[in-house]
């Protein structure tokens, strides 16, 4: 059995000998959880969770979650005790019944991801929008969490 480990295309130089010729090798690649390029992480029990970035500046905390192929009604965002939770379910389209699937790399099903915020935020002013498959959440920092300039007086 010849196991050709999938190589990251950025690092491998192309050579015709690397051609993945057999179905078995393709299957190995599909089952290999560390395949580069998934827009999500394989969860502990085989589910999936979206890729998330967290940024902050003086005024806000910003979250970006990669959730392609959803309707905004299917995404649930909750905030409690300093934790932001993004959850929902990505449904497969009903037409999948017909036809035969050759390759299935996309994840479907329920997802659930919680993250705690680096500072205190003002829950009332949280804003979220969903565009091009990316969910962007903006959480304004609470007044007391913003760095304050302290005046130095010289007497």
């Amino acid at each position, binding site marked *: 059995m010849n196991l050709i480990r999938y190589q990251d*295309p*950025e*690092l*491998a*130089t*192309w050579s015709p000998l690397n*051609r*993945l010729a057999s179905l078995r090798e*393709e299957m190995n690649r599909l089952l290999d959880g560390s395949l*580069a*390029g*998934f*827009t999500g*992480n394989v969860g502990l029990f085989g589910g999936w969770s979206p*890729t*998330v*970035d*967290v*940024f*902050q*500046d*003086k005024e*806000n*905390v*910003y979250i*970006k979650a*990669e*959730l*392609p*192929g*959803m*309707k905004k009604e299917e995404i649930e965002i909750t905030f409690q005790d300093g934790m932001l939770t993004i959850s929902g379910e990505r449904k497969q389209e009903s037409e*999948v019944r*017909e*036809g*035969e*699937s*050759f*390759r*299935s*790399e*996309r*994840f479907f099903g329920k997802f659930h991801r919680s*993250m705690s915020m*680096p500072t205190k935020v003002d829950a009332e002013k949280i804003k979220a929008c*969903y*565009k*091009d*498959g*990316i969910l962007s959440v903006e959480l304004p920092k609470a007044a007391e969490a913003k760095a304050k300039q302290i005046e130095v007086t010289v007497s």
Partner: protein
Amino acid sequence: MNPVAKTQERSVEQPVSRMPSWELPPANIREEHDAYLLELEMPGVSKNGLEVTVENNELTIVGHRGDAEPQGEVVYRESRHGDYRRTFEIDTSIDTSKIVAKMEQGILKLMLPKAESLKPRKIQVAD
């Protein structure tokens, strides 16, 4: 044999340090009665950032991410901010002039119709 499923990851022939870093979008490939359906996940790409080309039985999809540079400092980062690129070798049984592409919420759906002559055809049995 999977006419569409053979994926050849072409990398640019350059020294590693100067390679553009592409992300590989996950794909679902399905065969239907009269066409192949290809779905690629490319969050952050809109219709304007998309390039789909067919050349010599190779279908290449490039997705440029339109999302703005992140504001502020990074607290935690998982995404790999490169553009997306993937190439598929497609069989001659596909009518490349009739490929249809649709982009919605970061998912590209491509419909690759089978050439007329290859559709399953019912043959009438003469009495």
